[in-house]
Every structure is written in C-alpha cells, then in structure tokens.
C-alpha cells in the first residue's frame, strides 16, 4: 500500500517533465511497473484520483505490469516470468539471477499544447 507515496513522486516527475511546455490538457500518462514492485494497479489509480490536481485530474492512467526477467544460473537461459518462485523455461531450475522486475517508472505523457 505504498501506491500513494509513489503517486506523489509520479506527479512531481510529471510536473517537472512538462515544465517547458504550454499544456492545455493531459490525455494519458503511462506507467510501467515490474512484477516485483508490488504495485496494485487499482490502488495506484485510486491514489491518482485522490491526489491529482489540474492539469492532471481527468487524465487517463495506463498501467502496464512487466514480467520479471531472469538468467538461469544452471543453464544460462534468459527468460521472463510473472510468477514466483522463478522456474527456468528451459531446465526448470529455481536458481536465477534477477535482471529486472523491481522497476516502476513513468514511461510517457500524452498531452495537448496551446
């Protein structure tokens, strides 16, 4: 339930990213969250509705959950998984190095300019 603090960060990053533009309307903000980041999309949307002021209020929030990417330490296969424990798609081993999956980032903002 740390979606509220993440949303505060998202809004300040968005504000900073848009500072050089003459924004009249924000259409969509796209967020990507790795499976290991423990993000509940509904909780993030709720936090957005609660915290977003103009010009962000009313924008669409797109949230995509990304799979974990890992490298099997037994056979070297790189694979993706939405499930934990990780199971190598090639040899079935649980022993893996995590390459990504903890990230949560504001990917892009779609908006109308004056």
């Amino acid at each position: 339930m740390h979606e509220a603090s993440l949303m505060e960060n998202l809004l300040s990053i968005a504000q900073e990213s848009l500072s050089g533009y003459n924004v009249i309307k924000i259409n969509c903000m796209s967020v990507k969250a790795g499976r290991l980041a423990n993000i509940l999309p509904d909780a993030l949307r709720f936090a957005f509705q609660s915290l977003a002021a103009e010009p962000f209020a009313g924008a669409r929030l797109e949230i995509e959950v990304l799979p974990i990417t890992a490298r099997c330490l037994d056979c070297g296969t790189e694979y993706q998984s939405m499930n934990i424990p990780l199971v190598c798609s090639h040899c079935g081993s649980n022993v893996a190095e995590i390459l990504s999956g903890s990230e949560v980032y504001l990917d892009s903002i779609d908006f109308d300019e004056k």
Partner: protein
Amino acid sequence: MKIDVKQDLLSLNNAVAAENRALFNSKNLFTINIMGSPGAGKTTLLERLITQICNDAVVAVIEGDLATARDAQRIAACDVPVIQINTDGGCHLDAEMIAKVVKGFDLAQTDLLLIENVGNLVCPAAFDLGEDLRMLVLSITEGEDKPGKYPTAFMAADVVVLNKMDLKDYLDTDTESLIADILAINHNIKIFSTSCRVGKLEGMEDLAAYIVDAMRLKKQGKIKRG
C-alpha cells in the same frame, strides 16, 4: 503530443539511499534493515541481539512504527542510543526518514546501526534505506505459506530469521517445507532459526556471529553494496 519520460518513481528515494550509504561507508558503519510482519518478534530479537553483540560492537537503533515510542523505550532499556520514527500511518520507512534522524547519532563512534522497519511484509522491501544487509524476521506462528504469499520480501532479503522456534512442538507449521519454499524463491538467502523467549533462547550466538563477521568484513573493505 507525446513525450518519453522513463523516470523511476523511486528515483528520489534511491538517490537519498545512495547518500545514506555513502555516509555510512565513510563512517565504517554496518547497517541492517530489519523487516517482517507485526508481531514476528523483531523488537524482542533486537533486544536479545544487542545483549549478544554489545561486547563486539557499539550499537545504535532506529525504530519505525506508525505510532507510539514503545519500541524505542524497550531498546533504550538495553542501554544503547535509539531514535523512534513515527510514520503516522505510513506503511514503510524511506531513505529520507533515515537521513533526517541519523544526524542524532555519533556515527563515527558507532559500529552497527540496526533499523527496525514498520511491521509489514510487503511495502518495506521496495524502499532502499542505504543498508548493507536486509534481514527478514518470520515467526513460525505465521504459517509455512507466507513465503509463497509474500514472495517479494523474501526475494529482497539477504537473511531470514525463523523466529519463535520454541513453539515448534505446539504448532502444525512444517518448517522443512517452509525452508524449501524460501530457498526456491531466493537461493542466496541465509537462514537462521531462533527463539527469543527468556529461558528458551536459541540460535542467538549463530546470528550474532554472522552479523559480527559481516561487520568486520565491511570494516576491512571486503564487502560493498549498492
């Protein structure tokens, strides 16, 4: 129009955590972030650990809770410096909270900083505080299904302490399958079994020795995180 931002929502926390880590490294201070559910026995484990370790290390403690200074009062009774953080409802400690309070310690004279996170098996794992070691405390009363249900905490931890082992004979918890599940999630994790109950203390020497070793390795410049 559409602009690419690609900026991590945790970037602010991660930047402050990196500053914390640099500060701790400059003072040769070893730090442990202790996580686990409410009631797992984190504070009692700290009390026992401090008693076990205080001859080998100068210890300081940060206590994180939603409210009250009860844990800090318990730790202060162990005769070590302690600072309580109240998050007023916040479900985790973050790097900024740590940065604000560490100035209250004499870091140059401290060897080991123990940070007890807010009782929660989910959120604390996402927030780097600048620690060297992440220790998860799981009491066997919580049941053997917890690693499967809360896997990210186990993935993020370096050490897991299976606590309340004195109750093993009274519970149906299958500790063997519990350990197998933890290792399936994180094969690198180091597992300790403890009981912190007075008169039934168990496993404290092994855990303390592991921490003191890790602390010495850091002082010798042999481990570095982040």
